[in-house]
């Protein structure tokens, strides 16, 4: 059993399918007049955020509350708490308060891993984004969204475009989509692909137009403007021209193809407003689906005497 969700790599095909199927059922709860289940009554879920991320926090908060868990939001952002000492002390505090699960967002890659294996805390740890490492629930909600639109993921061609080097979303998506049988191509300027990407379970390319041929899903990643100053690319204009998704590129996609973005978007940089607001864009749906998927994860980790994930099915 896996008590924690730290990496998309922790999920077997059975685990991932169970989460997505459970999310499917839970999504129906959101359509009901009473959007609440008693399942996690008496359980405490702490949202421990060392980084600002209102959208992820409220998504987890809504998910936990719909399952009747008690939710404590702990915003630990600030210069003095970026020291490790604080992560430990914070963890010990949460343990003393009886947290059954800690949903952690942290700027340091591996911080959720450290929390899960430190012995500081006994509850389940859910990685809500760690540094440039992973964001597994984002990958799950992306897969959920793809499945709803394309019915199956296996064999689908998914193109992920942008700052892969610094993207936890890309890492989790590559791992999860490989497990689910999709064919993933990462597209970025060479400066924004990590050394070692050749060993990932996906293809990579520097040519967006060539990669879009036959794509079922195009996922655009956020590109931060400050990367320009670190010489990852010469200018915003050149980046947009080579790697941005505009109406012209979108028009060459197959009719059923969808456009995704984990948000927040830099309109005009990696995606134009025309694309972001088009019918193909499922970006708002991704947000909605985030709640169902996170409900499923919390339920499967906390709902029973033991986690439903990581068994030897």
């Amino acid at each position: 059993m896996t008590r924690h969700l730290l990496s998309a790599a922790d999920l077997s095909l059975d685990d991932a399918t169970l989460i997505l199927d459970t999310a499917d059922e839970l999504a129906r709860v959101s359509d009901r007049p009473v959007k609440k289940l008693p399942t996690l009554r008496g359980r405490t879920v702490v949202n421990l955020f060392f980084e600002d991320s209102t959208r992820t926090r409220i998504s987890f908060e809504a998910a936990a509350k719909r399952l009747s868990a008690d939710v404590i939001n702990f915003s630990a952002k600030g210069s003095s708490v970026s020291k490790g000492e604080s992560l430990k002390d914070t963890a010990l505090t949460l343990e003393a308060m009886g947290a059954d699960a800690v949903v952690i967002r942290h700027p340091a890659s591996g911080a959720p891993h450290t929390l899960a294996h430190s012995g500081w805390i006994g509850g389940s740890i859910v990685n809500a984004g760690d540094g440039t490492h992973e964001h597994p629930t984002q990958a799950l909600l992306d897969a959920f969204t793809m499945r709803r639109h394309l019915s199956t993921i296996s064999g689908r061609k998914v193109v992920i475009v942008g700052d892969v080097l610094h993207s936890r979303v890309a890492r989790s998506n590559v791992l999860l989509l490989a497990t689910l049988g999709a064919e993933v191509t990462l597209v970025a300027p060479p400066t924004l692909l990590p050394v070692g990407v050749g060993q990932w379970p996906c293809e990579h390319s520097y040519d967006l137009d060539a990669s879009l041929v036959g794509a079922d899903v195009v996922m655009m990643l956020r590109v931060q403007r400050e990367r320009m100053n670190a010489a990852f690319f010469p200018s915003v204009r050149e980046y947009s021209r080579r790697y941005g998704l505009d109406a012209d590129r979108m028009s060459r996609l197959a009719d059923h193809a969808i456009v995704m973005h984990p948000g927040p978007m830099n309109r005009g940089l990696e995606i134009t407003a025309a694309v972001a607001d088009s019918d193909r864009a499922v970006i708002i749906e991704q947000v909605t689906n985030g709640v169902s998927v996170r409900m499923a994860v919390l339920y499967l980790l906390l709902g029973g005497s033991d986690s439903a994930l990581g068994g030897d099915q």
Partner: protein
Amino acid sequence: MTNTTSPADVLIKGASLLGAEVSDLLIVDGVIAAIGADAARATGSDCQTVDAYGLVALPGLVDLHTHLREPGREDAETVASGSAAAAVGGFTAVHAMANTDPVADTAGVVEQVWHLGRRAGLCDVHPVGAVTLGLGGTELAELGAMAESAARVRVFSDDGKCVSDAVLMRRALEYVKALDGVVAQHAQEPRLTEGAQMNEGAVSAVLGLRGWPAVAEESIIARDVLLAGHVGSRLHVCHVSTAGSVEILRWAKGRGVDVTAEVTPHHLFLTDEHVRTYDPRFKVNPPLRTQEDVDAVRRGLADGTIDAIATDHAPHSIEDKDCEWAAAAMGMVGLETALGVAAAAMVDTGLLDWAGMADRMSVRPARIGRLDGQGRPLNVGEPANLVLVDTGTRYSVDPQSMQSRSRNTPYAGVELTARPVATYLRGRLTASEGSARR
């Protein structure tokens, strides 16, 4: 201070000298007085006898690269506690790195460290002098004053930081020629390693940790061997960690450049796969590399391209390691496990015999550091600096039993076979069975 009274005579019986011939060895007045059949005959009445059958006798180990943290971070280590760790690890001499607070960049600081070492009396503590003022990388420290001080500094290093300015490095290399000194370079191109957290490669790509590319080490070594060749100076390269570095050193030595190099036990033994745990005990600088690199530095050490094993013993307080990876300090303690780990990497694999280990862990480091009376052969008339090593019993590394003030070892629970059981500094027992004898 110490050693005011002569130690008692010691007869070591049945030790295997450098892992070869089994012989008795008599120590009188801190000097090897007799070897072989003569030893027992020459024994006086108040002689202490040590049963060393089954143990390997090596010359006392010499570490070119030790962080003793004093002055400044006495919470992590002191000269006294580090000396105890060294003695337990089989060392009779260590080089104390300059990155203390204040930095060892003046005669005053190096003499202070030297005196602290003398007072501890468990091994010879040779301060390393900083190359640049405050390790700032811009102005040369007073290298001559440190060389002429009571500490007689011969090794100069900004370790922890690279002397990255090519002109400054050239000047330092030239200047120490007058002092019979050597510049020990921490080879790390700073711009290529900004914010670096681990070896750049397949593992860093997966873990999302900023990469420390091999080229950042290799490019500096390449530049420095060319500089050393150009100005005819002696260069020492600290903690070589990559296959490319070994190749460059091999090439430079082939061209006659006066360059020496060291490798740490952890770079001989551990790979970046360990970082997958995000356990900060594996965070070290230079970072743990790939298996290919480990194989290459082992071969380089075996064929002499790399001259020495040096511990880079880097004690850190619990707070600096009990945290998430990015916040953790770099470094691991190593004095007490160096011989066991190095033997696992080199002897157990058949790459070196015990004579070879003595050469890499004692003879050559002493020569590089220009130490008198250390790294000498086990011959009559030589100072009795030696270590007896149990090579036949498996044991598991226990951090709690360590003499160092810090516990940041990556080897907790690792099984090793070679273990120093007794260390003699000029005939005096400084450590036995894991405890220092103060």
